[in-house]
């Protein structure tokens, strides 16, 4: 099988072009541009085209010729009927196809505006989601039989119980590192015993909730977004709707409730692991006895700190689940949107948690400090 061949000769004062071989995508010589240039050059001379020796022509070959001819039939053309139909098909391609995309001069203004509008819309939708969940809660008070127990316990298990090992491990290691680094500093002042105050306050009040929030956002938040998103892609959400099952009641409410309950417990668990890690490290580094550490802890860390930690856990858990579900519902039915929304959900959740944590710190600055409140 020969690839595309062009032969030209001058007869009776006119240029005769004979094409032969296979004019198909698989057999066209590369680069195609040289072939096209040659064809265009021949077209310029008002040639007689003889295509009857072509063995096969597909749409690539046909478009190539049609373009070379300047989208007109040449003055004289000889071709087999079947090849002619391929050319005729190429001739029917619409000309005004693509709405050419204009380049905006102030593109960044549009981008910025788009971002702000999107943020506003997300905010509004999350508020609407919260409202819907409140309505659901009211509905459940009226119809306690409809409480989604199975979904609730499944979520509690997945985002709570299954997160115990990783939160304990991370908490413990942070405790060890923090205690080790602080004890180096404290020793130089001879203030060894303040390690208890330092670790107690920072881990229980601040680090525990934030660490757990970051872990849970990455673990459960992403899973929730992906789950709801895939349900959109596979039309399971629509199937639920046609069965008259409220997706907010059956999918979102149990997730938000489960995470709001599981997170405070995880915070306590993680903080405990962190304190133990710090205690072990302090014992090894400075010879502080376990007995002293345990005895001193409740004396120097007001119990209000535990409540602040638990309260943060509750709020962070609720926010993470809300944000994850919100972005899950925003997934459009394609894979790209699924991955983009999952990323956005996790990043937004972590950012919002940190912001809310700062607000918490401001509001509670007089509470739970030794000597202060």
């Amino acid at each position, binding site marked *: 099988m020969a690839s595309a061949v062009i032969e030209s000769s001058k007869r009776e004062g006119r240029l005769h072009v004979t094409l032969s071989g296979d004019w198909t995508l698989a057999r066209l010589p590369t680069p195609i541009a040289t072939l096209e240039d040659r064809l265009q050059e021949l077209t310029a001379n008002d040639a007689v085209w003889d295509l009857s020796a072509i063995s096969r022509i597909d749409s690539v070959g046909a478009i190539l010729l049609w373009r070379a001819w300047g989208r007109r039939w040449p003055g004289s053309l000889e071709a087999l009927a079947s090849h002619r*139909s391929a050319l005729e*098909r190429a001739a029917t391609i619409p000309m005004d196809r*693509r709405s050419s995309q204009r380049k905006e001069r102030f593109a960044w203004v549009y981008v910025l505006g788009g971002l702000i509008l999107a943020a506003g819309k997300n905010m509004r939708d999350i508020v609407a989601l919260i409202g819907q969940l409140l309505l659901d809660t009211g509905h459940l008070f009226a119809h306690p039989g409809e409480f989604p127990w199975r979904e609730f316990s499944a979520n509690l298990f997945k985002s709570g119980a299954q997160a115990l090992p990783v939160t304990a491990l991370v908490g413990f290691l942070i405790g060890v590192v923090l205690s080790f680094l602080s004890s180096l500093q404290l020793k130089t002042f001879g203030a060894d015993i303040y390690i208890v105050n330092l670790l107690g306050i920072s881990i229980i009040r601040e680090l525990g909730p934030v660490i757990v929030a970051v872990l849970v956002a990455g673990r459960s938040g992403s899973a929730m977004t992906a789950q709801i998103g895939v349900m959109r892609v596979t039309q399971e959400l629509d199937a639920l709707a046609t069965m008259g099952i409220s997706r907010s009641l059956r999918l979102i409410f149990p997730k938000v409730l489960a995470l709001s309950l599981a997170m405070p417990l995880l915070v306590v668990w993680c903080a405990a692991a962190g304190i133990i890690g710090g205690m072990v490290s302090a014992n090894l580094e400075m010879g502080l006895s376990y007995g002293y550490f345990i005895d001193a802890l409740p004396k120097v860390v007001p119990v209000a700190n535990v409540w602040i930690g638990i309260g943060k856990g509750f709020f962070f858990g609720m926010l993470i689940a809300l944000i994850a579900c919100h972005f899950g519902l925003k997934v*459009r*039915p394609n894979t790209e949107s699924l991955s983009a929304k999952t990323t956005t959900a996790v990043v937004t959740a972590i950012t919002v948690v940190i912001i809310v944590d700062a607000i918490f710190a401001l509001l509670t600055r007089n509470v739970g400090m030794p000597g202060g409140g």
Partner: protein
Amino acid sequence: MSASDVQAIEVRGLSTRFGETVIHRDVDLDVEVGQMLGLVGGSGSGKTTLLRAIVGLLVPNKGSVKLFGESVFDADPTIRRNLRRRFGMLFQQGALFSALSVYDNIAFPLRELRVLDEDMISELVYLKLGMVELEPRHAQLMPAELSGGMIKRVALARALSLEPELLVLDEPTAGLDPDLADNFVKLIRMLQKELGFTVVMVTHDLETLAGLATRVAVLAEQRIIACGTPAEVLAVDHPFIRNFFCSEHAGAVMQKGIV
């Protein structure tokens, strides 16, 4: 034309199983260039699995598959790649890339070739769209915005985009309403006449079979129990064939198709 002594598809002694379940036992199948073979069989009889083995998505437990005289599992990657460009597959569910628009779905295999300029690709895409009777304005839609029939058409356009010599269709008309199915059959028949490709298709639908297939293969009891022209297959005496073709309605459809 390809050398006529080479078969488009040559399956020899193919056996496949999933775990303990045997799906195919010693299946032989030949499809000549330019034929349109309809593969029929009960639900779960392994039709899709056979297609997957033919196009090299599944390694058979035993036996060999050759397309145009070459193995899809050839040791030479260039042969494998060139072979894979010679056939197009239409999946049962369309399998369009959900993140790409209709335009980009069809352009995707063309861009992968890296020999065509973007202008040419654009012309080809609109040509293929026209071939499957879609409008230029549909090009910017996303797969999720398409109806079932449109998904099949776009998938067909994508399967056709590399000008395949072999078209593998898995239930091309399943889930389409009779009118659309009819149009689809006409479309494939017209394209086949013009482009001369070989077709292998799985179908449950007798109308599609009667309208397209020049040959019929029947898959039952883990092997091909009959393969030949529709008339030859109808003459085979086997409970499945009697059931499948010889209900009153089916008989009428097939007779109409054969004539």
